């Protein structure tokens, strides 16, 4: 070792770290926080390329605005702002927790010559900046369409202003939600509480993104979509659409009222989030790593789960101790781990939404034909829940702890895969089946319709075995950052095609009287495939460590 030479002298006056922090948080946001396990080749080196791809996707999605070429400025603006609101809300809700309250960050940055307030501002700047890029890409086509619809240059200009306001509102609202939770419930409960809020917001946003375009396209037939509708004032996107319409569209008084409401609410939210409650953020950041003096209430939950696995039928199903341990581990992470919850629940939310969309369309389009395509498709499509759930459960921030599986005296990953599979079937797939079945019953008022779920229920064990068939479904064994780049598409497309094909056969079979023969055939085929897959899994050895 050679000795260090004379060090630099501390510069005077003190530096302004805002630029450095902005660059840091932007880099961390684009690359992801933890790159553990990534080798040099796998590291996301090109920030520009990743960002460009995202923006192209948003730009293409924004082309749906072409549908509004001949519609009013207000209708176009409601659509653009509603979709922007969904995208930005989802993005900010998903990113805010990690950006605002990162536990490791306190050890890295809080002893540097920067204040928590400077950090908060740098983070907010990054959130707003990225939100605006996304909003800009999504709204680009809409700007051109709006220019045509309004027939003047005022629309593009005012729409840019209203979109910036909307981005500020979304960011401010989410930051405010965090700060209020911190103030009212304390840092000990912040993590769990905000995880729940984030999951709910993400699920709601995904649901909205699936349902909203359908609603807007039909809205004119159901409700009179104008700036004069009383209920429109309850929807934040309408405030910003009102601003567009007031300046570049109808210039109506109601639009000015909506615009004024948007301006007022955005100002209040921003003042509360970034001025009034900024101190709560400082306190929260300082204490986020400290040991809680309160006891975390997990004993009750643990006891409930332990009792459950000792009772039939779970005690029969989980006779193997390794499978039972894997079941308990997977269930604990499904209910407790922030990272897993934020990946799994928003990940499977669209799977839940699609059956509802089909059920609603089925009900509306074929009221005189009670046995449509929607019910069997819903049942079969729910086969994606265990498939997707298990794939997402492979990733964890504590993936290195999974070395213990390889150290344990077990030949291969089969019992671990079975435990995880059974946990997902019990706590994800089954509740979803019950929920969708309840909706079918409510919509149709006929319990016999539920018989059309049987093909889905038969296929479920087979679908659930797919992730583990090559020994790849070991729970919590891969770095969470690799989840973003994992190729899950093929197996999902495969399930989708099977769902479509079998649903079509089931609905035709039901109508023509050979439905039960189809069920019998499916049982035989599923039993053969299931047995073969279990044999393959039983022989599987540990995959190579990369």
């Amino acid at each position, binding site marked *: 070792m050679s000795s260090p030479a004379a*060090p630099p002298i501390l510069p005077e006056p003190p530096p302004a770290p805002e630029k450095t922090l902005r660059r840091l948080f932007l880099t961390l946001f684009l690359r992801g926080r933890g790159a553990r396990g990534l080798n040099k080749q796998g590291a996301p080196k090109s920030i520009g390329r990743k960002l460009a791809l995202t923006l192209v996707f948003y730009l293409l999605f924004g082309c749906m605005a072409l549908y509004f070429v001949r519609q009013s400025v207000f209708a176009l603006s409601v659509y653009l702002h509603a979709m922007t609101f969904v995208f930005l809300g989802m993005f900010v809700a998903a990113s805010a927790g990690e950006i605002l309250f990162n536990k490791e960050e306190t050890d890295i940055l809080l002893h540097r010559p920067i204040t928590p307030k400077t950090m908060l501002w740098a983070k907010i700047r990054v959130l707003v900046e990225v939100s605006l890029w996304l909003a800009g890409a999504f709204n680009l086509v809409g700007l051109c369409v709006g220019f045509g619809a309004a027939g003047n240059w005022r629309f593009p200009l005012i729409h840019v202003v209203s979109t910036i306001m909307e981005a500020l509102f979304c960011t401010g609202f989410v930051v405010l939600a965090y700060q209020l939770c911190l103030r009212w419930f304390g840092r000990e409960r912040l993590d769990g509480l905000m995880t729940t809020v984030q999951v709910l917001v993400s699920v709601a946003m995904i649901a909205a993104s699936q349902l909203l375009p359908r609603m807007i396209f039909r809205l004119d037939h159901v409700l009179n979509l104008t700036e004069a509708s009383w209920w429109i004032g309850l929807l934040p996107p309408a405030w910003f659409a009102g601003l567009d319409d007031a300046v570049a569209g109808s210039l109506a008084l109601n639009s000015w009222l909506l615009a004024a409401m948007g301006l007022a609410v955005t100002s209040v939210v921003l003042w509360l989030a970034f001025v009034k409650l900024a101190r709560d953020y400082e306190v929260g950041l300082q204490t986020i790593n400290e040991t809680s003096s309160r006891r975390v209430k997990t004993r009750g939950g643990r006891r409930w789960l332990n009792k459950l696995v000792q009772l039939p039928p779970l005690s029969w199903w989980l006779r193997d101790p390794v499978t039972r341990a894997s079941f308990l581990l997977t269930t604990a992470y499904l209910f407790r781990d922030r990272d897993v919850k934020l990946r799994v629940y928003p990940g499977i939310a669209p799977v839940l939404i699609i059956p509802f969309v089909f059920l609603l369309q089925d009900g509306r389009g074929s009221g005189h034909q009670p046995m449509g395509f929607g019910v069997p498709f819903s049942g079969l499509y729910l086969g994606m829940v265990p498939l997707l759930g298990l794939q997402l459960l492979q990733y964890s921030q504590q993936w290195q702890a999974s070395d213990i599986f390889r150290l344990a005296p077990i030949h291969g990953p089969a019992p671990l895969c079975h435990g995880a599979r059974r946990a997902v079937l019990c706590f994800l797939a089954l509740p979803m089946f019950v929920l969708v079945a309840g909706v079918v019953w409510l919509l149709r008022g006929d319990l016999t319709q539920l018989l059309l779920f049987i093909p889905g229920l038969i296929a479920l064990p087979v679908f659930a075995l797919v992730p583990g068939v090559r020994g790849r479904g070991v729970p919590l064994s891969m770095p969470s950052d690799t989840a973003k780049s994992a190729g899950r598409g093929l197996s999902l497309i495969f399930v989708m095609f099977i769902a479509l094909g079998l649903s079509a056969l089931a609905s035709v079979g039901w109508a023509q009287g050979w439905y039960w023969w189809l069920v019998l055939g499916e049982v035989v085929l599923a039993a053969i495939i299931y047995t073969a897959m279990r044999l393959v899994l039983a022989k599987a050895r540990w995959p190579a460590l990369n």
Partner: protein
Amino acid sequence: MVISLDQLTKCYGEQTAVDALSLEIPAGQIVGFLGPNGAGKSTTLKMLTGMLEPTRGQASICGFDLRQQPIEVKRHVGFVPESGAVFESLTGLEYLEMVAALYGIPPNAARARIKQFIAFFDLSFETLTDKLLGAYSKGMRRKVVITSALLHNPPVVFFDEPLDGLDANAAVGFKALIQTLAREGKTIVYSSHILDVVERVCHRVIIIDKGKLLLDGKPDELVAAHQSGTLEKLFTQLTGGAELERRAEDFAKTFRP
């Protein structure tokens, strides 16, 4: 005095983590800051580095008041936290340049200084530029964290378990480095559970338990005064670890077939 604590207290709800701690540390001293797990060492270090706000009491670093001038305090301290946390998706060089920028060190000076540390720690520049910190070994990561604490040439440095992950050669080099830094007038506060290292390196030892000061003095004088033979034995006597050997023997018997 470079570091001065007066009745420094930190409470979390009803729990007192640091209880009216008062002490003074002059320039050029290496102080071993010891205590069992949960004694309040890390909380004290976090308060002294401006990461945590004290509940009560006063403290100053290099004449700057911890409450009134936290940014000035931070500019004059370096800190190696026990966690060794780094931003794993940055390369080593990106990370160190980011830290240098936060202290206002010009990019060229920062790069030159980083190269000196790389040479000292036997790291390759290619590793620092090409690999993300997430792919570093624990020891390499620790070297980067130590570099980031010393990059701005602080007069006071707090080390919380700095040798964790370092190999034997790096640990020897590091111990020599802090002794040299102390001779040049820097104040080093060294928190560790490796007591024989503390005994050899530190000029003074402070032992705390349950947030309260138990002992403060030169290691050899304390050992002699308590007739304990070694600092380790003195530490276990003071912190209720005297029964540990007998308990370990009893427990080991449970492994017999």
